[in-house]
C-alpha cells in the first residue's frame, strides 16, 4: 500500500502557494518538529494544529556585564500565529544564588511582553504568552497588557538578560516556544 498521500503537497512556509483554496490541505515542511499541516480558507493558509516552533538545544550563559544582553533570538514566521493564535513561551534558567538582581525579558517584535526579576534563586522557570485577539495586529500578554504587534510579518522573539552584578551568571537552560 502506498504510504505517501499524493493529495497533500509539501512546501516551505516561505514558498507555499499564494492562493489558498478553501479546504485544500498542504504540509509545511520547515515549521514544527516534523512539519505541519495547513488548510486553505479561501484567502490564506491556516495552521490546523499547534506547533512546537522552537526548543533550545544549546545553553546560553551571560556574565561579565551589567548591560542588557541578547541571549536568544527566534524568528516567528509571518502570519503563523493567525488571528486567534497564541505564542506560548516557557523559559528555564539557572542563576547565581545571591541577593543581586537578575532580570530576564521576553520581547516580540521589539516589544517587551514579559519581565522577570530573580534574586536568591538557583533555578527559575516561567511561562509567558502573547495572544492574538481575533486580529493579527492586536494582542494581550499573560499580564493582560495590550500590544499592537503586526504578526502578518515575521517577528523575532528575543530573550535578554541583565545582571545587577557583572560577577554573577544567568544561564538559559531550556526554552520552548509553541504556537497554539
Amino acid at each position, binding site marked *: 500500500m502506498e504510504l505517501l498521500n499524493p493529495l497533500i503537497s509539501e512546501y516551505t512556509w516561505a514558498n507555499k502557494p499564494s492562493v489558498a483554496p478553501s479546504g485544500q490541505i498542504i504540509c509545511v515542511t520547515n515549521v514544527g518538529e516534523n512539519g505541519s499541516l495547513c488548510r486553505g480558507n479561501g484567502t490564506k493558509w491556516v495552521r490546523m494544529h499547534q506547533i512546537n516552533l522552537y526548543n533550545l538545544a*544549546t545553553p*546560553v*550563559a*551571560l*556574565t*561579565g*556585564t551589567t548591560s542588557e544582553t541578547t541571549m536568544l533570538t527566534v524568528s516567528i514566521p509571518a502570519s503563523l500565529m493567525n488571528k486567534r493564535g497564541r505564542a506560548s513561551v516557557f523559559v528555564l534558567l539557572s542563576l547565581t544564588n545571591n541577593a543581586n538582581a537578575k532580570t530576564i525579558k521576553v520581547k516580540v517584535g521589539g516589544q517587551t511582553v514579559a519581565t522577570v526579576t530573580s534574586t536568591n534563586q538557583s533555578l527559575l522557570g516561567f511561562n509567558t504568552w502573547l495572544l492574538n485577539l481575533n486580529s493579527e495586529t492586536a494582542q494581550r500578554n499573560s499580564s493582560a497588557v495590550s500590544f499592537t504587534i503586526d504578526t502578518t510579518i515575521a517577528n523575532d522573539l528575543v530573550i*535578554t538578560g541583565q545582571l545587577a552584578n557583572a560577577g554573577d551568571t544567568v544561564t538559559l537552560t531550556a526554552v520552548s516556544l509553541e504556537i497554539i
Partner: protein
Amino acid sequence: MKTIAATVINEVVTPVSELPTNAKLIVFNGTEYVIYEDGDELPVIE
C-alpha cells in the same frame, strides 16, 4: 571554540551574526559570545 562579536542596538548588547543552534554551550563574557563546540573544554559556571 569560536567567538562572535557583539554590538549595541537600541541599548541592548546583540551578536553581530546569528548564534549557532548546535553548539555545546554559548557564553557571553562581557565582551563577546564564546561558542563551545564538541571537543572544547567547557568552563565552570557558578
